[in-house]
């Protein structure tokens, strides 16, 4: 289900969402962080698309590795190394695969979600991007086939689930109770990543 073309499309779409929602993501980060998440993500994904356009790839893994390295070196902040790690793990999980099917992606996303948690010393319920990645992985594994609309819906619910949470990781944790009632910016950007994945899978 993931091909060189579809990963390319995925990143182009993800970039479109990041650019469109740059101000929105930054506003979310204004509420419970330091007002840069939209700026970071839009800068990072713009560079990803640029990088993919300038290069040619033999397999999906190599392509995802470039996505990872670009995010790592262009996003900065907390989200840069975390998204970098996620895509690096995803790339490693699908290494050597001719075709990347539903189960390969499941394994890849699983590795990615675990990578984020290890790097961030975080787990679910802490009001971070993990609260989108972890439930998506669980859900993905349960499906026989991925329904694009369901994937989008699931990711959206996961993002929204961060709203009532109290942050204990990342900058938002400084606010303690005051972090309640706002969607986590990283959860929102993760939602856009899965929403665009859903769209290329549809």
């Amino acid at each position, binding site marked *: 289900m993931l091909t060189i073309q579809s990963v390319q499309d995925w990143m182009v779409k993800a970039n479109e969402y990041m650019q469109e929602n740059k101000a929105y993501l*930054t506003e979310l980060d*204004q509420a419970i962080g330091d*007002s*840069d998440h939209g700026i970071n993500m839009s800068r990072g994904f713009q560079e990803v698309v640029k990088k993919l356009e300038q290069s040619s790839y033999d397999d999906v893994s190599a392509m995802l590795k470039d996505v990872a390295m670009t995010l790592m070196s262009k996003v*900065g902040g907390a989200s840069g*190394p975390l998204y970098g790690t996620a895509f690096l793990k995803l790339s490693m999980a699908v290494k050597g695969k001719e075709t990347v099917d539903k189960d390969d992606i499941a394994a890849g996303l699983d590795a990615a979600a675990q990578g984020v948690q290890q790097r*961030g010393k975080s787990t679910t319920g802490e009001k971070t991007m993990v609260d989108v990645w972890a439930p998506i992985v669980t859900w993905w594994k349960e499906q026989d086939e991925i329904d694009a609309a369901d994937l989008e819906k699931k990711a959206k619910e996961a993002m929204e689930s961060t709203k009532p949470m109290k942050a204990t990781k990342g900058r938002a944790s400084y606010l303690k109770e005051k972090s309640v009632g706002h969607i986590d910016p990283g959860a929102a950007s993760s939602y856009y990543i899965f929403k665009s994945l859903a769209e290329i899978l549809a």
Partner: protein
Amino acid sequence: MKKIINNPSNVIQDMVKGMTLANEEQWLQVEGTNVIRRKELSQGKVGLVSGGGSGHEPAHAGYVGKGMLDAAVVGEVFTSPTPDQIFEAIKAVDQGNGVLLIVKNYTGDVLNFEMAGELAEAEGIRVEQVIVNDDIAVKDSDFTIGRRGIAGTIFVHKAAGAKAEQGASLDEVKAAAEKIIEQVRSMGMALTPCTVPDAGKPSFHLDEDEMELGIGIHGEAGTERKKIASAKEIADELTSNIIEDAGLTAGDEVAVIINGMGSTPEMELFIVNGHVNDMLKEKQISIHRTYVGEYMTSLEMAGFSITLLKVDEEIKELLAEPSEAVAFKA
């Protein structure tokens, strides 16, 4: 948003250019990076690298110079620099005796410096890392990511820099840095928020009669909002909080930083300093040295932070060593 800039997305590039030009005799910009390095490294010395998001000027590049840092990595506004850039800084300062990374305790900084350290170790460079967490406004517990690093970081740069310049080993330099981290505490307040250029809007709103206590250095709101009080009341509250948290008692000796957050006139910082002095004297805590000025800012935020470092003979000696850093000549 009123700023003297060109394209908001290019502020870092434009800043780094003007910054290096202003200090051409002392600094060089490592090619293809936003790493500012001392032009001449002291022969054989342990390398010292710090850095973080921009918007804290003169931090961190202002502390690059003989007796303080060897390199500073300049991130985007309030955004930790990336591992590749930090790695370049490490390579640019390593002379075979290892490199100490001085990192402020923010998830972003910690993660990026950590990854850079891993890249360096993979290339056989010995790297150690210390995490500065002087801000008592944020509680340090198992359920949080711990206290933030703010203006107390300057003392870590100074002490580690002096130690390294004396020819100490990586472990010794790290120990000196950790000793400072152990003994330094800070707390800040704000009268106004600030605006990240590319965000275009202030990070929070404060009414004409309100202030925030316990602010960080990234334009984030503080831990407590209050009616604005007199300089004496504010200084007393912050100072007594720090004294309590640090467990300072009569007979102790401290070094003091009164740090402006960006747009607070020096006049106000000096007024605050008078009250901090009064309270320390009242508690019979003696004052070794006082630094009043802008050391770790938050763009054009109005407000200040107070830092107290408990000193002993060893620390006093390190503070007394010369420094040629533009923002901390000593």
